[in-house]
């Protein structure tokens, strides 16, 4: 489904991704962990199409399509969804209006007719229930004045509405209380299916108790330096990153 080959990217002339390789198949959950500043959000942003990052080498295909060539909105319409580490506040645009525009733009891209107001509302209500998203938040300006946890929940709510094929969750667990963590994870799990895949960027094993990954990767200094089964996350939780850093330094 997603094939990343020797992906290199820089920002302001500084190389941040230094040759990433990753294969994600339908139905899989991949966790990406790694120390602060190692490039996890950069990778997520490059996949979503953020223009300030310049891709300097390598390729990314999604269901056979070269996605580096297409605009962020087209990637979304192809089924890629990024839940932001820091969701943006947009004053003056209500969450509900924003989502309606997004849903119908994506439908247009796919050659489907737009949902009418009633169909849309029905769908939104169901999804809001799924992640226990308060109705009053939907009517407020997008993320404006939302608490940290509310913003994260809003990301997962939007994901539930847009039903992406590949969801990339960038530290969606940070800032969530215990109950919210469970609710958000349940939301993610309810979307798990043999056709969909998820990439979870996190610092904590805790999330992976709920969203159990098939693979765990460690990103360090712009490269995936270690991959393993879900137990790798436990090991990292216990030992930290020093032993991995030492392994990397020893090789280079």
């Amino acid at each position, binding site marked *: 489904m997603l094939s990343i080959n020797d992906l290199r990217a820089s920002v302001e002339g500084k190389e941040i991704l230094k040759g990433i390789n990753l294969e994600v198949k339908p139905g899989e959950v991949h966790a990406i962990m790694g120390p602060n500043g190692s490039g996890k959000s950069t990778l997520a942003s490059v996949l*979503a*199409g*953020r*223009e*300030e990052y310049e891709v300097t080498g390598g390729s990314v295909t999604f269901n056979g399509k070269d996605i580096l060539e297409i*605009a*962020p*909105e087209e*990637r*979304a*319409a192809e089924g890629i*969804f*990024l839940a*932001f580490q820091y*969701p*943006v*506040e*947009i*004053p*003056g*645009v209500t969450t509900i209006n*924003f*989502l309606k*525009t*997004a*849903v119908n*733009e*994506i439908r247009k*891209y796919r050659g489907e007719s737009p949902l009418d107001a009633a169909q849309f509302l029905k769908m939104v209500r169901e999804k809001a229930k799924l992640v226990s998203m308060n109705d009053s938040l939907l009517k407020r*300006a997008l993320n404006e004045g939302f608490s940290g946890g509310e913003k994260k929940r809003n990301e997962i709510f*939007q994901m539930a509405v*847009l039903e992406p094929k590949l969801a990339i969750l960038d530290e969606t667990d940070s800032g969530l209380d215990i109950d919210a963590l469970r609710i958000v994870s349940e939301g993610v799990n309810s979307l798990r299916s043999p056709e969909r895949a998820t990439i979870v960027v996190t610092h904590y094993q805790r999330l992976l108790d709920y969203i159990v990954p098939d693979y765990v990767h460690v990103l360090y200094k712009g490269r995936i330096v270690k991959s393993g089964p879900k137990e790798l996350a436990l090991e990292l939780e216990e030992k930290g990153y020093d032993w991995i850093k030492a392994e990397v330094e020893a090789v280079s």
Partner: protein
Amino acid sequence: MSTETIDLKTRLVTDFYARESVMNGAAASALHQKKRAALARFDKLGFPTIKNEEWKYSNVKELVSESYNFNAASDIELSDLEDLKIPEQDANIIYFVNGHYHAGLSRLVSSSDQLTISSLSDAIKNDPDLINSFFNELAGESGDAFTELNTAFTHDGIFIHVPENKTVEHPVILRFVSDARSQNIGSQPRNIISVGRNAHLKLAEAFRTLGTERSFTNAVTEIYVSEDAGVEYYKVQNESDKAYHVGTTQVRMLDRSQFYAGTVTLNGRFTRNNLNIVIDGERCEAYMYGLYFPDGVQHVDNHTTADHRKPNSNSNELYKGILRDRSKGVFNGKIFVRPDAQKTNAFQSCKNIVLSPDATMNTKPQLEIFADDVKCSHGTTTGQIDEEALFYMRSRGISHSEALSLLMFAFCADVVSQIKIDSIREYLENVIAEKLATK
């Protein structure tokens, strides 16, 4: 000074005296003496140049280098105006064509016990002393050449009086149409609005152009807001790319009154709006909202004044603009707090999005505070569109152009939502959405 500048001025001054010479006895009236004095002041001032501090960024050279027919007749019919219309619900609609009241197109729905309303030319004929008691009593202070010119040539416009304790339920919408289908049109409407004690009025002025020749509108509105009265006043400019508009709205507020102004400039070649509010009462609330969308080579200049002369009153101001192409915007906001005006709260803000490197915005807050116990603040921002927000929206599948128009629409929303006449707000929402979508 170019020779053309002298031309328009000379032509107007000559025209004034020519008309006066055939007035017979009427020339001696108090009203005419005011006009005469105004003409003399205009003659002395001349049209402003950019050397004049108040006109530093707004050059009227192009405006005054043209000639206009100030007395043009028009065979306009309602059907000609279909696509210029704001779809109105229950409202009093008064049409002015080339500055003249048009009875055939106008329609009143409010009863005469709620308000007195008539064309200014009729009002001058019927009760010259009453009109004279209001005429130029507020605008006379301005010292502005265009205002003097309007005063000198005052002949028509609207006169509205709302008696005390009356609330005019239906808004009054004044539509000024320049019929520029076959020639350059000049018009100088003059409006006098008097709202009595504890009376309430919603008023809008809408300016449109028909045709593709040039138009020059020089409008002056004087608004008297009595004690405990409330007035909402909207000015909507959606004129042609060849329309020049200079307008002054001069307001005086007395104790405990409220005044809301919303000024929206959708289109026009050159627009200069002066909105001057004298807060001559205690516990008054004045609000000024403004919105402008120049594109191409359009020029929009808003000059506002909140002049606090008495204690304990508040003024609030928010102007917003989106500038494209090679357009220019000017904002000058004056706040005066006179020595007597203790405990004044005066807030002012002007925010702009400049979408093109060739567009420019000049903002100048000007605070002159002579009292010590006051709260005043001002802020101006001029920026580009928020790229983070744009990427966020695109990452959810919204196209670049759609995201851009959503963001711009949102930027305008806090001003548009202040417009309390539903039909006008809805009209603006539609026009603005269209304007933001097509570019």
